[in-house]
C-alpha cells in the first residue's frame, strides 16, 4: 500500500449504479467521480433521476440498489446507515425540508451535532460552545434567533426552510454536501442568500454536488464540472459553460438522445 494512497482516493466514486423504486428502474448505470474540493452540478429534466441519486446517496430506505457501487473516501457507502453516512461527512440538503412539530431547531441542531461527534469519538459540544457556534453561523445566514427557538421548519416560508438547510450544513461541516434542488421555490433574493451561504462553505477540503433543473442557481454557485443526467445516466459532462448551453437549448435533445 502506498503512503499517499489517501490523496488518490476520490471523495465520491459512483460506478454503474442501478436503482429501482417501487419496481421501476430509475438509475440505469450511473457513473460519477467527485474529487476533494470540487463542485459538481448535476442538471437534467424532470424524472431523469436527480432526486433519486440524492436520496440513494443519503441512504433512504425505499430506494433499492440493484447494481453497482458507491464509495465515499474509499468506504462502501451503501453498507452504512443514513446516520453513519452523515457522521462520515455526507450531508443532503433536502428539496422539501420537513417540519418537525415539538422539536425546536436548537434542540434538533444540538442533537444532530453531538450524535455525529459521538459517532466519530469526538467530545460532545458543551452548551456555551454550541450556542456560540449557532449564533455565528445563523448571523452569517441572516437566520433570526427567534426562528431557532421555534419547532424545526414549522410555519417557515420556503426561503426560511432552505436557509435552515444551509445553516445545518454550516454547523455539521460535512466533507460532501449534496444540494437537492435547493433553488426550487426561491425568489431571487432568497436564492442569493442561500447561494452566498453555500459559497462561504466552499473549501479545498469540501466537495459539493449541486442538483438543479435550472441554470440560474449556477450563476451564483459556480461549478467546476457540469453533468447532464437523462433517463438514469450521466449522458454528458463538461465545464460550467455546459449549463449555459442547456439554458439556451433546453433538455429536449437529451430526452431524445436517451430514448
Amino acid at each position, binding site marked *: 500500500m502506498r503512503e499517499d494512497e489517501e490523496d488518490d482516493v476520490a471523495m465520491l466514486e459512483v460506478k454503474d449504479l442501478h436503482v429501482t423504486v417501487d419496481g421501476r428502474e430509475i438509475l440505469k448505470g450511473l457513473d460519477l467521480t467527485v474529487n476533494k474540493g470540487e463542485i459538481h452540478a448535476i442538471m437534467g429534466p424532470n424524472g431523469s433521476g436527480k432526486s433519486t441519486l440524492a436520496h440513494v446517496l*443519503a*441512504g*433512504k*430506505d425505499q430506494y433499492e440498489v440493484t447494481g453497482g457501487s458507491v464509495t465515499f473516501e474509499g468506504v462502501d457507502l451503501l453498507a452504512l*446507515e*443514513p*446516520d453513519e*453516512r*452523515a*457522521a462520515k461527512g455526507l*450531508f*443532503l440538503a*433536502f428539496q422539501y*425540508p*420537513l417540519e*418537525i*412539530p*415539538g*422539536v425546536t431547531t436548537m*434542540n*434538533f441542531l444540538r*442533537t*444532530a*451535532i453531538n*450524535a*455525529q461527534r459521538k*459517532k466519530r469519538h469526538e467530545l460532545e459540544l458543551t452548551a456555551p460552545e454550541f450556542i456560540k457556534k449557532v449564533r455565528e453561523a445563523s448571523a452569517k445566514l441572516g437566520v433570526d434567533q427567534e426562528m431557532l427557538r421555534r*419547532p424545526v421548519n414549522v410555519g417557515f416560508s420556503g426561503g426560511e426552510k432552505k436557509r435552515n438547510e444551509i445553516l*445545518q450544513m454550516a454547523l*455539521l461541516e460535512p466533507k460532501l454536501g449534496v444540494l437537492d434542488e435547493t433553488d426550487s421555490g426561491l425568489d431571487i433574493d432568497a436564492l442569493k442568500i442561500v447561494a452566498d451561504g453555500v459559497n462561504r462553505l466552499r473549501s479545498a477540503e469540501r466537495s459539493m454536488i449541486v442538483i438543479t433543473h435550472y441554470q440560474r442557481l449556477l450563476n451564483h454557485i459556480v461549478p467546476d464540472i457540469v453533468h447532464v443526467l437523462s433517463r438514469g445516466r450521466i449522458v454528458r459532462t463538461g465545464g460550467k459553460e455546459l449549463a449555459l448551453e442547456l439554458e439556451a437549448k433546453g433538455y429536449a435533445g437529451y430526452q431524445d438522445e436517451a430514448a
Partner: protein
Amino acid sequence: MTELRPIKTAAETALAEAFASAKARLPGDREVAARREAAFRRFEADGLPSRRTEEWKYTDLRALMRDAKPLAVPPAARALQPQALGDALPGIAALNVAIVNGVYAPGWSDAGAGDPGVTITELFAWLAEHTDFRLDRAVPEPVDLALALNSAFMTGGAVVHVRKGARVDRPIHLACRFVGDSPAAMYPRTLVFVEPGAQVTLIETCDGPAGLDYQINGALALVVGDGAQVERIKIGNEGAKALHIETIMASIGARASYREFAFTSGSAVTRNQLFLRCSGEGSNVRIAGANLLKDRQHVDSTLVVDHAAGGCESREVFKSVLEDESRAVFQGKIVVRPQAQKTDGKMMTQALLLSEKAEADNKPELEIFADDVQCGHGATAGRLDENLLFYLRARGIPAKEAEALLIQAFVGEAIDGIGHEGVRDMLNGRVAAWLEARG
C-alpha cells in the same frame, strides 16, 4: 320466554360475598349504610360492565377483572414512612394528603402544618358533620357500575376545602398508595371544594407494588366555585399488574378555569372517567392526557363534558404512545344543553402506534341542543412518520434516538399545556426515562 341473564362471574360472586361480610364494619352512620346498600343493589342488578354496556364497550370489566380482592387492611402507623411520599414529586414542595390502602393517612399528611387557606378532614368525620350533603346536588353523579361499587364499599378518603379567594402557593398532593404483601381492593373517595375566587393546583399520584394485582376503584368529587382557578394533574404510576379505576365528578362555576392533565404509564388496566358539568357561564375547561403504554397495558379515558351554561369553552387533547399489544381507548362526549348558547368545544385525540398489535379506539360524540355553538372533534392514529425519521437520520441521529426525539415531541405537545412548571419538567423527564427504558 325467560329473560337471559349471564351467570355471575367469579369476581361478581366475590364482590357480593365481600359486601355481605364487610357492610357491618364499613365506616359511616345509618344513612351512609343505607346508601351503600342501595348502591350495591344497583351494581348487582347489572353486574360488572361488559361489552354490552355501551359506556364500557372497549373496557370489558367482566373480562378484565377476573376476581375481586379482599378489602385492604389499613397499614399500621409505624409502617408509614413519610419520606416515601417525597419521592413522588421530586423538587416540588407540596401539601401532602395521603390516602393509603384506601383510607386517609394523617401520619403521611401535612394537614396541620399546611396552608391557612386549606382544610383537610377525614371523609367520614366530615360526612358526619354535613348530614345534609348530597353528592348529586354538588356534582354530576352518573349512573355507572364502577361508581356504584365505590359508593357501596367506600373505604375512606379525605375532604379538601379551599377557602374563598385563597391563593394556595404549594400544590395539594393527593398521594394514593397501596402498601401490602398480598393483593387487595381499595375504594377511596375524596371530595374537593374550591370556593369562589380561590386558586389551587391539585396533584394526584398513584403508586403501588409492581408484582401485586391489587385493585383501586376510587372516586373524586370536585366543586370549583365561581371565578376559581384549578389545575389538577394526575400521575398514574400504579404497579404493572394493578387495576385502577377512577371516577371524577366535577362542577365548574361561572368564569372559573379548570385544567386537567392525566398521565398514565403504570398499571395493567386503567379507566379514568370524568363527568364534568360547566354549571356557570363563561368558564374555561382544558382536559388533556398522555399515555405511554407497553406490553398488554390498557388505558381508557372516558369523559362527558356537559355544557349546562352558555359561553363556556372546553378543549380536550389526548395523546397515546402504544408499544407491543397495548391499547388506548378514548371516549369523549360533549353535551350542549339548549340554554348553553355560544359554547365552544373541541376534542382531539392522537395515537402513535409503535407496533402492529397495538390498538387505539376513539369514540367522539357530540350531543348539541343549542343552535349557536362551535363544536368539533378530530382523531388520528398512525406510526412514526418515515420521512421525518429519515430527515433526522440524514442529520446523523441514530434511528432509536430519532424515534425517541419524535415521540418526546409528540407527547410534549400535550405536556406543554400543563400550567405547573415543576410538574411539566418532571413529566418530560418521565417520558425521557420511558423512552430510555424502551431501548
